[in-house]
């Protein structure tokens, strides 16, 4: 088995699917050159017809992809950064995601929007946001966020073969990460998570960029005799609720780790579901570890402080083991001081 980078795995998936199915094509800005190398070299094999460089017109390109998808093709639209999806939001939400349903099932929309998501490389506020919760909130979109090269290849192939619109998010901080990728053909199912490390004491649920932090935290906890079970959800929508609930039924403790912001973030959804459906199993209040609720700062020091770290996860896991909850009054004080911070007083 060869070790490959995340972006090399992406490129393999694209090349294999384009060879397999002539209706698959790649469209986006600089896909020929391949800014993140995930599309580099494909033009040499597939030519202008199937590797289409476009103007910097995210809205039109995203919508043209829908037009192609509803007339028989399977476009993979590369919009580069997750934040660039904001420019294309109307077409993705109102057309790609809605068309099948609002037209009463007359059509299907087999399209993949592919971007780099989240922060971690000092790209600054406009290129470093974890945008996935916005799309998790859109009915009938699928949202995939693999954490390693093996998953990236298998899930991208599944996304391209899926007849529904898929947002495929590669964590920006993991583009250069290497991992084992088999040479033989494989496809991973969308919607299935994976237990990365089994454990009996606490369930740590993560996806994408925060999986390495969750795993690192589990090692630190193990030194102290705490066995954490680490879950990588891999797909955010539809998500593997059963896997999480079964784990919580076993451990009785839950920590949700995600790079997105705390209010209506991915971790909020996982935690709410655990509270709703596994309350009887919980031995302590579930904990969320989210990105800090500020824009993404440039300084590496500041950016590290914003993104969930392994230490944050260790502390959250320990809070569930102590079982103690902060008194509500203290939380109010914390909230007031937060507001003072926001208003600059």
């Amino acid at each position: 088995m060869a070790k490959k980078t995340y972006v090399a795995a992406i490129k393999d998936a694209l090349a294999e699917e384009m060879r397999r199915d002539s209706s698959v094509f790649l469209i986006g800005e600089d896909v020929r050159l391949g800014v993140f190398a995930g599309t580099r070299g494909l033009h040499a094999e597939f030519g202008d017809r199937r590797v289409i460089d476009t103007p910097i017109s995210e809205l039109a390109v995203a919508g043209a992809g829908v037009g192609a998808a509803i007339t028989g093709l399977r476009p993979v639209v590369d919009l580069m950064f997750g934040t660039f999806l904001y420019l294309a939001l109307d077409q993705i939400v109102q057309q790609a995601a809605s068309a099948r349903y609002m037209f009463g099932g007359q059509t299907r929309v087999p399209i993949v929007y592919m971007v780099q998501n989240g922060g971690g490389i000092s790209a600054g506020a406009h290129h470093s946001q974890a945008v996935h919760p916005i799309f998790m909130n859109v009915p009938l979109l699928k949202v995939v966020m693999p954490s390693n090269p093996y998953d990236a290849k298998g899930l991208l192939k599944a996304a391209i073969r899926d007849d529904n619109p898929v947002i495929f998010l590669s964590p920006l901080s993991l583009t250069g990460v290497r991992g084992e990728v088999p040479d033989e053909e494989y496809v991973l199912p969308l919607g299935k998570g994976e237990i990365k490390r089994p454990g009996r004491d606490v369930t740590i649920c993560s996806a994408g960029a925060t999986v390495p932090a969750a795993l690192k935290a589990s090692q630190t906890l193990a030194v102290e005799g705490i066995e954490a079970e680490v879950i990588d959800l891999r797909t955010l929508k539809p998500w593997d609720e059963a896997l999480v609930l079964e784990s919580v039924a076993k451990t009785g403790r839950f920590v949700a780790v995600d790079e997105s912001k705390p209010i209506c973030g991915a971790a909020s959804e996982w935690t709410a579901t655990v509270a709703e459906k596994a309350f009887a199993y919980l031995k302590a209040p579930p904990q969320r570890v989210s990105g800090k609720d500020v824009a993404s700062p440039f300084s590496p020091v500041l950016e590290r402080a914003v993104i969930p770290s392994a230490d944050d996860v260790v502390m959250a896991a320990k809070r569930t083991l102590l079982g103690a909850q902060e008194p509500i009054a203290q939380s109010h004080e914390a909230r007031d001081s937060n507001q003072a911070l926001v208003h600059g007083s």
Partner: protein
Amino acid sequence: MDNDKILDIYTRMLRIRRFEEQVGILFAQGQLPGFVHLYIGEEAIAAGVCAALRDDDYIVSTHRGHGHVIAKGGDFNRMMAELFGKATGYCKGKGGSMHIADFSIGMLGACGIVGGGIPLAVGAGLSAAYRGTDQVAVSFFGDGASNEGSFHESLNLAAVMKLPVIFVCENNRYGEFTPMEKVTAVRDIAVRATGYGIPGVIVDGTDALAVYDAAAAAVARARNGEGPTLIEAKTHRRGGHAEGEKAFLAGGVYRSQEELAEAQLKDPLLIMHRRMVAMHLIAPDVLEELDHRITQAVAEAVAFARRSPDPEPEAIYEDTWI
């Protein structure tokens, strides 16, 4: 132009007019949920353009989309049932007036967002070129949409890729309740084509035959691989932005009586009718018979919609992921 083509265009226009008149009545009677935007006064554009298309060509429509569906060959019963929100409607009651689509005739959907459908037509054109067919795609939109980013991005994208797309701006002089000249930096939308290196054509949108000629030329160009054309069809919106608008405008007036009277005079259906009679193309009684048949079909569509079942609540989870 041969007589059959002229009668074909007139028939499409009359079908739109009689359908829309009935929808206006039903809405006023409170029989239709939601809101509707009527195409009355603009029939020459949809009819003239669609008469220049093949059945396998694509169109993408707007919030004022009933006319486009009918002109492309849509079915009265399924349209009317959709307006009533019934299970037998085009979208099984999930779309409504602003989301009627008929993929079987290349009608890729009305669109509730101003300018939202334009990129889809570019994609349908791209798809035709990719598959090596000579199909074309038409994007209908209004003067208001020409101030949206999607319009400008789409024209540029279609132009650089030389895609078989015809952009048809139905300039009815109002974006909702605001006159075009207040919010648009140019007098003619067609001049915006210059910025994208494609032909921009102005046509009298109340003259169906002129619209047909302009569309036929643009379609031929697109099929020939010569790229997109922007057609600006200048027209009048006979009614309001939306039916029942007097109620929510609460007495607010945005158009003068003179202007409304002018719109009545420039009725595309009357213009076409007079011309056909004057040219002795067809006997008046044959036209009356045609009108009668269409009116009858509209009445049957209303009856069909009324007797159709509502969707079952369980249907909310149908037509989701496949």
